[in-house]
C-alpha cells in the first residue's frame, strides 16, 4: 500500500448513501457511543451521589463541573440555566471525541478490519475530524445565538443590530454586510477551528506512523522504529494539550457568543 493510499484510506469515512444523503457511519456510531458513555456514567454517578464526603470519581466530576461553571460565571453576564449544561456537554463530549485521536491510528481500523473480515474496510475513528460533527455543534450554537438575539433584543432590535451596527445609521448597507459576516463567522470559525486542529493532528499521527510502516525495511527498522516511537510519544503528549485546549476553546467561545447575544445594545 502506497503512502498516499494509506493516508487517503485513513481519512475516508465508512459511509453509506450517495451525494448529500451520505451517512458517515463511523462518525455517527463513535460520537453516539461517546455520548452514551457520558450519559451512562452520569446516570450511574447520579444514583450514588454523596452530599457530605464525595468519593474519588464524584470529586473528579465535581471539579469538571466547577471548572465549567466558573468559566460560565466569568464569561456570561446574567443568568441562563441552559448555558452551563450546554458548556459542560460541549467540553466533555468534544474532549472525548478528540481523545479518540490519541488511540494509535492503526489500532481500531485494524481491529475493525479483522472483525468485519474486510481487509479494506474504512474506519475513521475521530468524529471531530469529520466536518459534519463540528459543524453540527456550531450550527446548534448558531441557532441558540439567533434565538437569544431575537429573544433578548426583540425582532426589531435584532434587525436594528444588522442595520446600524457597527458604523451607525449612515452606512446601512456596509453595516448589514459587516454584521452578517460577523454573525456567520462565529459558527464557521468554531467548526473549522476544531475540525482543522483535529484533522491536522490526525494527519501528523498518520505521517509518524508511516515512518515505521513504509520506510523501515530490514536493518533500517532498528533506527526508524525507535524514532517513530519517540516522535509518536512527543506528538501524543503535545496533542493531549491540543485536544483539551480545543475542547476548552469551543466551550468558552460558545459561552462568550451566547453572552454577546444576551447583551442589549
Amino acid at each position, binding site marked *: 500500500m502506497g503512502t498516499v493510499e494509506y493516508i487517503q484510506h485513513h481519512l475516508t469515512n465508512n459511509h453509506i*448513501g450517495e451525494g448529500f444523503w451520505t451517512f*458517515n457511519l463511523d*462518525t455517527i456510531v463513535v460520537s453516539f457511543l461517546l455520548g452514551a458513555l*457520558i450519559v451512562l456514567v452520569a446516570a450511574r454517578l447520579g444514583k450514588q451521589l454523596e452530599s457530605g464526603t464525595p468519593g474519588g470519581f464524584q470529586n473528579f466530576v465535581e471539579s469538571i463541573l466547577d471548572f465549567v461553571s466558573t468559566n460560565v460565571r466569568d464569561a456570561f453576564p446574567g443568568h441562563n440555566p441552559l448555558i452551563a449544561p450546554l458548556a*459542560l*456537554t460541549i467540553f466533555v463530549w468534544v474532549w472525548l471525541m478528540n481523545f479518540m485521536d490519541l488511540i494509535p491510528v492503526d489500532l481500531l481500523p485494524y481491529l475493525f478490519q479483522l472483525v468485519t473480515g474486510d481487509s479494506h474496510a474504512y474506519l475513521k475513528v475521530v468524529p471531530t475530524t469529520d466536518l459534519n460533527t463540528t*459543524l453540527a455543534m456550531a450550527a446548534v450554537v448558531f441557532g441558540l445565538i439567533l434565538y437569544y438575539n431575537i429573544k433578548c433584543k426583540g425582532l426589531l432590535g435584532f434587525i436594528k443590530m444588522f442595520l446600524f451596527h457597527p458604523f451607525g445609521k449612515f452606512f446601512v448597507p456596509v453595516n448589514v454586510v459587516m454584521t452578517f459576516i460577523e454573525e456567520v463567522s462565529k459558527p464557521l470559525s468554531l467548526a473549522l477551528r476544531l475540525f482543522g486542529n483535529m484533522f491536522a493532528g490526525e494527519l501528523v499521527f498518520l505521517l509518524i506512523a508511516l515512518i515505521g510502516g513504509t520506510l523501515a525495511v530490514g536493518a533500517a527498522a532498528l533506527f526508524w522504529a525507535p524514532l517513530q516511537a519517540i516522535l509518536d510519544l512527543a506528538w501524543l503528549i503535545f496533542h493531549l494539550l491540543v485536544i483539551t485546549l480545543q475542547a476548552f476553546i469551543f466551550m468558552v467561545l460558545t459561552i462568550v457568543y451566547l453572552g454577546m447575544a444576551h447583551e442589549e445594545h
Partner: protein
Amino acid sequence: MSINATLLIQIIAFLLLIWFVNKVLWGPLSKLMEDRQKKINDGLSAAEKGKHELELAEKRAKDVLKDAKLQAQNVLSQAEKRGSEIVEDAKVKAVEEADRIKASAQAELEQEVSRAREELRKEISSLVVSGAEKILNKEVDAAVHNDMLDTLVKSI
C-alpha cells in the same frame, strides 16, 4: 470529507446529549453542590456565632468571678473587723470584771480589817477596863467612865 446528512444526525445527537447531560448530570450534581455550599456557609456562620457567644460568655464569667471575688473580700474584711471587735469587747469586759473582782476583794478586805480592828478595840477596852478595875480594885462604873473609856479606845 464533504458535508452531508451526517450533519443532521450529529445535530440531533448533540441536542439529545445536551438534554441528557442537563437532566442526568448537571441538574442533580449542581443542585447537590449548591446545597453543600449552602450547608458549609451555614456551618461557618453558625461557628462564627458560637465563637461570638463563647466570647460573651467568657466575658460574663469573668465579670461574675470578679464580683464574687469582691464579695468574698468584703465578707472576709467584715469578718475580720467583727472578730477584732469581739476580741476588743472581750478584753474590755475582762478588764471590767477584773476591776470589779479587785474592788470587791478590796472592800471585803477593808471590811475584814475594820471588823478586826473593832474587835481588837473592844477587847482592848475590856482589857483596859478589867485592868483598871484591878488597879483601882473596885468596880468602875462603866456608865460614869464611859466618856473616858471612849477616848481611851479611840487613842489605841
